[in-house]
């Protein structure tokens, strides 16, 4: 059996893996967020939570030979949320010691923590560095007071700027999230991005605001209190921001992600390239042993399942051949590397027409989406999925 280079991304028995740890605590709830999170917690809850995370890893290790042998190198760690920066540094230390430190890891281990401006201070920054955290992802979203208010963010622009400055001083690899949503002006956005770059940001995630049912934002949209931008406006802003970042020396390496060379998030790249990762915490996802699984989303239920010694998985998705093929294609389509043409099911995409319309280019026998194409990726994915039958 032979493999093409794309199918062999260090996936052997000794290949590296990634660890995701979910921290569901927030100081306040953002209007658009639909992830597992809670604003109702105290230090006892947080302490107990970290112990539960360690318990989950022990339970999983007991059932999984690869984990228990502690032989595979850990390549990336990502503490996401929620707001991991809310955790006391002692708890982060306990968490890292009980998880990351128990595995052999690559010398260039990437360890990211998500932080919100209001819970990020010098003390924490210093402590995190001691623990080996070498990448900070800041939830900035905007520097406009009216937009931050609409999104329900806890921080004001001054706190956001302070956080950017602090992160830039303390960390070599700083990423910042921005949201492209209502009432956004291209010139304001570009000024904000310039400012962030000056303060040391080397990586941006630009997310187009999505309204998920059940969120406060969805309610306000339904009541007419928030007017969502027209697709034409979102398109304009996205294209302009992308072009602006490119001028500043950032490469768009995925639909929503831009980085200076070498500053890409290796953890996120693992998601798109099919490398295994383990997720701990309520609602966390894993891709392990050719199957995808998701933990139960409710923190209390997650904890209860752990207490009775059961792995708190909710959904398990054993991937069949078609599913694996489809995933491989749609994940590759998200990236700047693109999809090898011979992976594409026949007739799904009109390759020539798409080139003419500027949706993609063909580079070394791969179809690579342009920004214009990234904006329409759902349509391409649907066309591909429809034609894909094994």
């Amino acid at each position: 059996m032979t493999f093409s280079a794309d199918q062999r991304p260090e996936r052997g028995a000794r290949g590296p893996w990634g660890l995701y740890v979910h921290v569901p605590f927030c100081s306040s709830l953002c209007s658009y967020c639909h992830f597992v999170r809670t604003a109702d917690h105290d230090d006892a809850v947080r302490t107990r939570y970290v112990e539960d995370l360690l318990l989950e890893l022990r339970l999983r290790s007991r059932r999984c030979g690869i984990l228990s042998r502690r032989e595979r190198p850990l390549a990336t760690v990502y503490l996401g949320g929620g707001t991991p920066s809310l955790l006391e540094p002692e708890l982060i230390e306990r968490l890292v010691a009980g998880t990351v430190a128990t595995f052999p890891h690559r010398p260039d281990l990437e360890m990211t923590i998500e932080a919100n401006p209001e819970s990020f201070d010098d003390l924490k920054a210093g402590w995190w560095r001691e623990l080996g955290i070498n990448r900070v992802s800041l939830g900035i979203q905007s520097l406009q007071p009216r937009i931050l208010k609409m999104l329900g963010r806890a921080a004001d622009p001054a706190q956001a700027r302070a956080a950017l400055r602090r992160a830039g001083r303390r960390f070599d690899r700083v990423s910042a999230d921005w949201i492209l949503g209502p009432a956004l002006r291209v010139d304001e956005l570009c000024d904000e991005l310039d400012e962030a770059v000056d303060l040391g940001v080397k990586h941006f995630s630009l997310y187009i605001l999505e309204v998920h049912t059940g969120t406060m934002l969805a309610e306000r949209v339904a009541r007419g209190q928030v007017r969502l931008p027209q697709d034409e406006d979102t398109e304009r802003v996205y294209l302009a921001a992308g072009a602006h970042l490119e001028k500043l020396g950032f490469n768009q390496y995925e639909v929503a992600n831009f980085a200076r060379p070498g500053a890409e998030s290796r953890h996120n790249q693992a998601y798109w390239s099919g490398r295994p990762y383990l997720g701990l915490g309520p609602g966390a996802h894993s891709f392990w042993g050719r199957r995808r699984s998701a933990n139960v989303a409710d923190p209390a239920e997650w904890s209860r399942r752990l207490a009775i010694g059961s792995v708190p998985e909710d959904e398990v998705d054993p991937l069949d051949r078609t599913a694996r093929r489809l995933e491989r294609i749609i994940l590759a389509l998200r990236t700047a590397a693109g999809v090898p043409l011979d992976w594409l099911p026949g007739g799904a995409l009109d390759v020539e027409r798409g080139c003419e319309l500027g949706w993609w280019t063909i580079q070394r026998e791969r179809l690579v989406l342009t920004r214009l194409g990234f904006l329409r990726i759902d349509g391409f994915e649907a066309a591909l999925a429809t034609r894909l039958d094994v």
Partner: protein
Amino acid sequence: MPLNRDKTRNFCIIAHIDHGKSTLADRLLEATGTLKGKELQEQVLDSMDLERERGITIKSHPIRMNYEDPRGESWTLNLIDTPGHVDFHYEVSRSLAACEGALLVVDAVQGVQAQTINNMYLALEHDLEIIPVINKIDLPAARPEYVQEQFIDLLGCDPDEVLLVSAKTGEGIPDLLDAITDRVPSPEGDPKERAKALIFDSIFDPYVGAVAYVRMFAGTISKGDKIYCMGNEKRFDVGELGWFRLTRMGQDTLEAGEVGFIATGAKDVRHVRVGDTITLADEPCDHPWPGYAEAKPMVFSGLYPTDNDQYDDLLEALEKLQMNDAALSWEKESSAALGFGFRCGFLGLLHLEIIQERLEREYGLNLIATLPNVEYEVLLRDGSVQLCENPALLPEAKHIEEIREPIVHASIITPKDFVGAVIQISLERRGVQTKMEYLDPERVCIEFDIPLNELVVDYYDKLKSVTKGYASLDYEYRRHQMDDLVRLDILINGDLVDALTCIVHRENAYTWGLKLCQKLKELIPRQMFAVAIQAAVGTRVLARTSVKAFRKNVTAKCYGGDISRKRKLLEKQKEGKKRMKQVGSVEIPQDAFLAVLKVER
């Protein structure tokens, strides 16, 4: 045991939809002891799921009841259940021909409906003894006196001839049984004459082949006889024959006056057609029962599988349905837009709906049905006449001298408040009013000659909506008639969508085309490319509109490694897409093919 004709009564029930025919039949079965309590299931005689759901009868279900009256005399009562919808006119007339009497059942709240009257006239034509019955007298809103007046007006009967019944509570049922035995004449006919049996329905049974439901008018037919279907000129050996209970009960003979079944072994019901006469092959009777006609389809529609892989399944399903439904006709056709499918002919709109629903429900098919249309006569310049039941196949205008369309005579009964609205919607659909008559101070009967095509598109729905559901409609084919008709094409991104082609009156072409374009614009989702929609007569574009291409549909985050959600969403969409049709580069949802039906005038 020879039949005691004097103690036999053959009768049917005529009623409008929802006026309680099936419930009444159930009550009779119960009162005569034909059904025991536990066998009694709501509406026993409507055996198809669809019939029960819609509360209508599609196939007739005869049943033989033994009844002992209060004086201790024994009777044989044959109830012939008749189809209750205008589409099945011919079947109704054959069922009536098999009886000597009819219960004319009218809802005590709603009163007489258009169809009731037409079927009543049909019954009178067959010289049936009519027993007027007012049903649902238990309802609080019942108006028995009012309905009684209607009966007296219509039938010229005496007030005391009208029976008051509640099929639900059983009130009045004993009197009804008395009326049946007293008033309905006994069947005539000599069992020693040459055999003559009228087929009033037929079904297909996979074990014994086509089974004819017959009324014996003369002679005797026995098991093992060689029989001859006179209209169809087909010979069969009688496998089984007998009476109807809930199931068929085999007997040795059927003789004059009886109602029963004859299993022919024929491999589908088209060989044993409703209205045909069965006699003995060796000693045939002189004349068949008059009025045999093959069911003539009036409404046509193209049926296409959404998924081309289901073509063979659709063919098989149609063949199976046809075994049991001689009125269903079809031929293969292909459409540039929809691929391979079938042009099917139906008795009417309900028949179409029923077949479509059965194909989808019982055979698990996903179908696209094109706009129902009618059969046009096209007189060509060379003097020949072509029949055209598919608008897309209409010859080019330059070859056409004239187009003639079927005109029906429609009668509508409506409460007087809605007369204006009924006239308006009828005139808008090119109806010509021929008569208007007050049936009573509250209700009016209006008659129109109206193109059948206008009727099949949306008339019935419209009628129901402007009269708040109170009007009833019946119609009958009259003639083909010339009018200034044109073929209206729809083009999507320049590609002709043949399945959306329709034939309209020239004066309506522009408005219709414009509205159709607008409707399609609503129904066709934004796609990668802009979609241009045009309506054209010949090369002249009458109306155009477009669906803009979407500018963004990215849902950016693949957050926290949740890849499954995205993939499952795509897999779900993929199922949805199976219900879309690709025309050129455009995906058209199934609904769009019915959009033509939903266009408001």
